[in-house]
C-alpha cells in the first residue's frame, strides 16, 4: 500500500495494455451510493473523448497510470450527478473539518493505492489542507518529481481524515445522491456549528439548515449572530422555518420572529403547531427590551403542596432548556407564585420532604421591567433564574442567566 496525491494523478499519462499512451487523467470519481471512500473510476481524456477506467483494470497509479485493457474497451464517460468528482467537487473547495470544528479549503487529496490480486483498489484517505499540498501543487511540473517528494517529506502534513470531512453541496437533490447528511457536523456543540455556519456563504448555510436535525438546527440558530440568523430564516422555506422555530426556546423564537418582517413572521407562525404558536405570540406582544421580552414560558412549576418526589417527576417530564432547570417554582391558587426551591436542595433532600418547607426567599420582577434592571437584579442577588410575575402575582415566565449574558453582550 502506498499514498498518492490527487494532484499527482491529475494530468498523469495513461497507458493501455500495449504500453501506448492513450490519454491523461482528468478526474477521479467516488460513488458514495456504492462505497463512501472507494474510487469508482478515473476519468481519462483520450483523443476520442472522455473515457472511464475502473481501478479493477489498473496495474499502477502514480506519475503514470497503467491499465490492463485495450483503450478500445474503455467505456465512454457520461456525467452523472450521483458521483463525487474529486477535482471538480473537492479540490480547492471549502469543506467542514468536523474534528477541527472549522471551515477549511482543500489543497490536495490523499489517496491510498492497495494492490489486490493483479489490480488496484484506490481509497480516499484524507484531504490535505496544509503547506505540503500547497507546495506540491505550486511546484508540480517545475521540480522533478523525486526531488519534490523528498522535499515534501520534510514538511509536516496537515491532513483531515476523510471520515471527519463534511462536504458542502447546495443542490438538495445532489445532496441526497451523494449521501451528504452533515452527520459529523450535527454531533458538534451548537455553538461550534454556529461558528462554522457563520463562515459559510448564504447558499451553503441554507444547505446545512435544510439538512440537519430540527432540534440541532434550532439550538444552532439561537447561537448565530443576529444578522446571520435572520438571513438564514429568510432563506428557508416556510415549513422548514416553522419546524425549526417550534424547537427553539419560546423567548428565542419570539425574539427571532420579532426581528423578521411582519409578513414573514406571520407566515412562519401560521405553519407552527397551535400550542407553540400561542406561547410565541404571547411573548411577541411584550416589548423586546423588557423582562417579559426576555423571559421564557418553559419553566418548572409545581403546586405548593407538592413533595420532593413530585418535583423530580416534573423534572423528568420537562422538555424545555436545561438552563431553566436550576429552580423549581411553587405556585398556589390561580398560579400565584409562592415559593422557589433550588435544584441543589431537591437533590439533597429526602423524597417525601414538603417543598414548601424547603422554599427559599425568591426574587421576582414585573413584566415591564427594563432589561438593564433585570441585569442589575441578577448581579445583586447572584441569580441563576429570575421569576417574572404579573400584576396579580401570577408566574408569567422566567429569565435565565444565559439570556442575561447574551443581552449584555449584544447591548453594545
Amino acid at each position: 500500500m502506498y499514498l498518492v496525491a490527487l494532484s499527482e494523478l491529475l494530468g498523469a499519462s495513461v497507458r493501455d495494455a500495449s504500453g501506448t499512451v492513450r490519454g491523461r487523467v482528468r478526474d477521479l470519481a467516488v460513488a458514495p451510493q456504492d462505497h463512501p471512500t472507494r474510487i469508482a473510476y478515473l476519468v481519462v481524456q483520450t483523443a476520442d473523448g472522455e473515457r472511464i477506467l475502473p481501478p479493477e483494470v489498473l496495474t499502477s497509479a502514480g506519475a503514470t497510470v497503467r491499465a490492463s485493457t485495450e483503450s478500445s474497451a474503455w467505456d465512454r464517460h457520461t456525467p452523472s450527478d450521483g458521483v463525487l468528482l474529486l477535482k471538480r467537487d473537492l479540490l480547492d473547495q471549502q469543506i467542514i473539518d468536523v474534528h477541527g470544528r472549522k471551515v477549511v479549503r482543500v489543497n490536495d487529496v490523499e489517496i491510498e493505492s492497495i494492490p489486490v490480486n493483479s489490480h488496484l483498489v484506490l481509497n480516499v484517505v484524507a484531504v490535505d489542507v496544509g503547506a505540503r499540498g500547497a507546495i506540491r501543487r505550486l511546484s508540480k511540473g517545475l521540480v522533478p518529481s523525486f526531488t519534490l517528494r523528498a522535499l515534501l517529506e520534510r514538511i509536516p502534513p496537515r491532513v483531515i481524515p476523510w471520515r471527519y470531512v463534511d462536504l458542502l453541496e447546495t443542490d438538495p437533490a445532489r445532496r441526497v445522491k451523494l449521501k451528504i447528511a452533515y452527520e459529523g457536523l450535527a454531533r458538534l456543540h451548537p455553538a461550534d456549528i454556529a461558528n462554522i455556519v457563520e463562515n459559510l456563504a448564504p447558499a451553503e448555510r441554507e444547505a446545512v439548515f435544510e439538512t440537519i436535525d430540527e432540534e440541532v438546527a434550532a439550538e444552532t440558530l439561537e447561537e448565530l449572530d443576529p444578522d446571520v440568523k435572520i438571513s438564514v430564516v429568510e432563506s428557508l422555506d416556510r415549513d422548514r422555518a416553522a419546524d425549526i422555530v417550534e424547537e427553539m426556546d419560546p423567548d428565542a423564537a419570539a425574539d427571532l420572529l420579532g426581528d423578521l418582517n411582519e409578513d414573514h413572521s406571520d407566515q412562519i407562525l401560521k405553519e407552527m403547531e397551535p400550542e407553540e404558536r400561542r406561547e410565541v405570540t404571547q411573548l411577541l406582544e411584550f416589548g423586546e427590551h423588557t423582562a417579559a421580552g426576555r423571559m421564557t414560558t418553559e419553566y418548572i412549576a409545581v403546586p405548593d403542596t407538592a413533595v420532593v418526589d413530585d418535583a423530580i417527576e416534573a423534572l423528568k417530564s420537562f422538555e424545555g432548556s436545561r438552563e431553566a432547570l436550576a429552580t423549581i417554582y411553587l405556585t398556589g391558587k390561580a398560579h400565584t407564585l409562592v415559593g422557589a426551591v433550588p435544584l441543589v436542595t431537591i437533590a439533597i433532600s429526602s423524597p417525601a420532604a414538603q417543598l414548601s418547607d424547603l422554599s427559599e426567599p425568591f426574587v421576582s420582577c414585573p413584566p415591564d421591567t427594563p432589561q438593564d434592571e433585570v441585569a442589575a437584579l441578577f448581579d445583586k442577588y447572584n441569580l441563576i433564574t429570575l421569576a417574572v410575575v404579573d400584576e396579580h402575582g401570577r408566574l408569567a415566565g422566567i429569565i435565565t442567566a444565559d439570556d442575561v449574558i447574551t443581552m449584555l453582550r449584544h447591548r453594545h
Partner: protein
Amino acid sequence: MGFLKSWRVRIALVVAVVGPGFITANVDNDAGGIAIYSLAGAQFGYSLLWAMIPIAIALVVVQEMAARMGAVTGKGLSDLIREEFGFRVTFFLMLALVITNFGNVVAEFAGVASSLELFGVSRYIIVPAAAAIVWLLVVKGTYESIEKIFLTASAFYICYIVAGLLAHPDWKAAVVGTVSRPPATAVRSYSYVFMLIGLVGTTIAPWMQFYLQASIVEKGITARQYRTSRWDVILGCLFAALVAWFIIVACAATLYTTGRTDIKDASDAAQALRPLAGEYAYLLFAAGLFNASLFAASILPISTAYAVCEGLGFESGLDKQFHEAPVFYWLYTLLIVLGAGVLLIPRMPLIHVMAVSQVVNGIVLPFVLVFMLLLTNDRELMGKHVNSRAYNVVVWVTVVVMVSLTLAMVIAQLRM
C-alpha cells in the same frame, strides 16, 4: 400617502445597503489619484475633462460586476478565483496583489506625511501615529462602526468640491471641456496622451474589486437586495468622478491659467493653490489629501490580508484571536509597519517603490478583470444573474481599453 410611503420604503432600502460601493469608489480617489487629477488640471486645463465621463462609466461597469458577484455567490473574489481557476493561479495572483498593494500603502502613507508636512508637522511623528491609528481602527472596530467612519470619510471629499468652487473657474469652459471631443492638436501630443493614460490607469485597481466584493459579502447583501445595492455602486462612482472633476477644474482655473505647471504631487498642488485661490482652498486641498490618504491606508492593508488568506485558505477574520489566524494578522500588521516604515528611512527612493508597484498593478489588472468576466458569465455560479450579451459587449470594450491603457502606462513607466 401610498406614494409617500413607497418612497420612504425605497429610501430606507437604499440606506440599508449603502456603504460598500460608495466607500470603494471614493477610496479610489487616493493620494495617487489626487496627484494625477491635479497634474492633469495644472498642465492641460479643461482639455482633459472629457475623459471623466468614460472613466465614470468604466468605473460603474467594473464595480457593478464585483458587487453583483458578491451578492449572488456570497463569496469573495479570491475565493471564487481559487475555486474556479485553481491553486497555482491564485497563489501568483495573490503574490502580485501583495506587491502592488504594498506600493499603494507606501503611497498612502506618503500622502498622509506630505499633507501634514504642509502644516509643519514632522513625518517622524505623523507616519507612526497614522500607522497606529489605522492598525487600531481596524482591529478594534466592528464592521458597522468602521463602515460609519469610512462613510464619513467619503463625505469629506466634499472638501475638493468646495475648493473647486473657491477657485472661481470658468464654468462655461469647464462644461464645454467635459462634453466636447478632445482637441485634435492635443491628441497628437505625447505628454497629453501620457496624462490621459495616467488618468485612466489610476481609475481601476485590482484591490478595489477584492475589497468591494468582500464588503458586499460582509454586509450580508444578497441577490434579492442587489437591485437596490446597485444604486450604491452607481452613486458612489458618480460622486467619485464628480470629486475628480472638481480637482481638475480647481487646478485648471488657477495653476493652468497662471502657468504654474511644475507641480509634482498633490501637496505641491495644495501649496501652489495658496496664493492663487486663497487660504481656504489651500486648507481644503491639504485636508482633503490627508483624509483621502489616511482613508485608503486604512482599507488597503486589511483588504489585502482578507483576499490573500481567503484565496490561499488561511484562517482570516477580525473575530479570531491572533494565534488562531497568525498569517492574517501578520500580513496585515507587516503591510502597515513596513509600508509606513519605508517613509521613515532617509533618502529612500520612493519613486522606485511606487514605480514597481504601478508596473505590477498593470500586470495584475488584466488577469483580475478577465477572471471577473469569466466568473460573471458562469451560469453555474451566477444563475440568472450572468452578464447579458449587451452588457458583455460594454464590459469587454471597457476591459480591453482599460488593459491596453494600463499596459501603456506600465511601458511608459519602464522607459522612464
